[in-house]
């Protein structure tokens, strides 16, 4: 029997190719990494910003040439450093980790808010290629916060992309969930895919559970190892790194006392999401 070998989990050092400013506080950082480029939509990588932090990030782009990207906003020292990364800077990558979104031919609705749109962009491409009927709701606080509108419109055509803003400065006023509820009915949606603020995703879960529509969400928890060992990223009995980060409505059923409400901080104490 082979001994335990974790050498494939070593950090790979990559050079930043370019850093694209997307909104007033969201950037997309590109690098070349073949392993990450082999990811399926919804899988994530651990990104090491040397001297600052290492954290899980969804892949927002990856292509056949091995070029990938993560889309990041500053919420701590590590992500802030990554937002400020310059061409040629070194970052570390390992993964991809976790489950991917289910790709099937059906009527799909993608619902995302803020940087939560990152994993939904490659998903839109894959679903469209698979022959799915795909629509996307893109939410943001204000007009200047809307992420990837052009990209989604390129992949899904203009008429299938819907924008909402919390303050009503652009697109449909209100939260993406309100519009999603209408679209689920109108478009006879068979599966909803979401990533974004957890309160939004929980609301959408309740809508989908009520309407009997399949549901998949990308969740986030305090993560350390990313490979099933440390037990930090728990949601009930689940480990997000291994059992997630994509969880189906079915899988979330036994975690409804936490999902959208509570998470554990780095010490393991419960805090609000």
């Amino acid at each position, binding site marked *: 029997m082979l*001994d*335990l070998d974790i050498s494939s989990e070593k950090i790979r050092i990559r050079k930043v190719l370019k850093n694209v400013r997307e909104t007033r506080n969201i950037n997309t950082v590109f690098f070349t990494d073949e392993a990450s480029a082999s990811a399926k939509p919804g899988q994530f990588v651990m990104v090491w910003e040397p001297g600052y932090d290492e954290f899980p990030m969804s892949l927002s782009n990856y292509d056949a040439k091995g070029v990938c990207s993560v889309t990041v906003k500053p919420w701590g020292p590590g992500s802030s450093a990554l937002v400020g990364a310059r061409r040629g800077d*070194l970052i570390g990558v390992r993964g991809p980790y976790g489950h991917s979104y289910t790709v099937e031919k059906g009527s799909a609705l993608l619902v995302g808010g803020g940087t939560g749109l990152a994993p939904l962009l490659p998903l839109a491409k894959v679903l469209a290629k698979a022959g799915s009927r795909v629509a996307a709701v893109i939410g943001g606080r204000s007009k200047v916060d809307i992420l990837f509108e052009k990209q989604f419109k390129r992949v899904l055509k203009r008429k299938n992309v819907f924008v909402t803003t919390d303050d009503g400065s652009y697109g449909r006023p209100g939260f993406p969930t309100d519009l999603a509820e209408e679209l689920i009915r109108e478009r006879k949606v068979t599966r909803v895919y979401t990533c974004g603020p957890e309160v939004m995703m929980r609301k959408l879960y309740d809508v989908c559970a009520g309407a009997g529509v399949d549901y998949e969400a990308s969740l986030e928890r305090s993560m*350390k190892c990313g*490979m*099933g*060992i440390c037990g*930090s990223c728990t949601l009930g*009995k689940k480990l997000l790194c*291994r059992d997630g980060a994509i969880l189906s409505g079915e899988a979330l059923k036994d975690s409804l006392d936490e999902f959208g409400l509570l998470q554990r901080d780095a010490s393991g104490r419960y805090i609000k999401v």
Partner: protein
Amino acid sequence: MTVDSLTRAIEAGAGAAVSKSIGLEPREGYRNPTLVATDSGLVNAVGLANPGARVFSEELSAVRGKHLPVIVSIFGGGPTEFGRVVEMLDGNEFPAYELNLSCPHVEGVGTEIGHDPEVVASVVKAVRSRTKKPIFAKLSANTHKMVEVAKAAVDSGADGLTAINTMRAMTIEVETRRPTLSHKFGGLSGAAIRPIAVARIYELHQAFKVPIIGCGGVSTWEHAVEMMLAGAAAVEMGTALYQGYGVFQEVNRGIQNYMARKKFKRVQEIVGLGHKF
């Protein structure tokens, strides 16, 4: 590990599950990277992240009546702190304590305590005087004094020993020239430390009659059996969780097959058999 995660390990076939080390106050641990993979195993400096004794006690009391075999690992900066942690936890239903006397990467609560037989004696006495539950002292192999430390623990009332904790370690990433872990120093676990653990378990089994829990690089049934032959009455697995929770059932089945093949009835029969030669 939360009580939920420990429960999952038990449901997956673990005979018991050891908690993350619990201290008096909540600790967030170190900044990431807290774990780094190498060709020779995993190096971690999580930094004793834990929710604190009060919160963990609440988690334990929520599963009262389920008789979960959760061994509670505790740490502290000295006998007073260890004693207070026990006072906060002891009313809960759990079968045993494991004293973490050997964390190789947290200053003041790890090997500074666990490498000093006198301090270990005072810690074990402080715990002993506050609980009737069995106490296992988890030892560090980062010292030549391990047997001396073990003697201090056993003489002060420890019911058993756990060996070994991770070996003090570091990695430096060459492109960036930085120590990879945010804390720089950590502890090595995984396959590389297993032969070290086997030697230490063998030494402890020679020197003491108390039960030994073997630990360090176990990921298959053969590793578990090897440690038992060296003198371990039970084995712990941690890094092996990389293979998923199925690893517990796989190891159990492998041990059972070995027992049947070698015509042993009870697993106790093989403990220490490696000493016959």
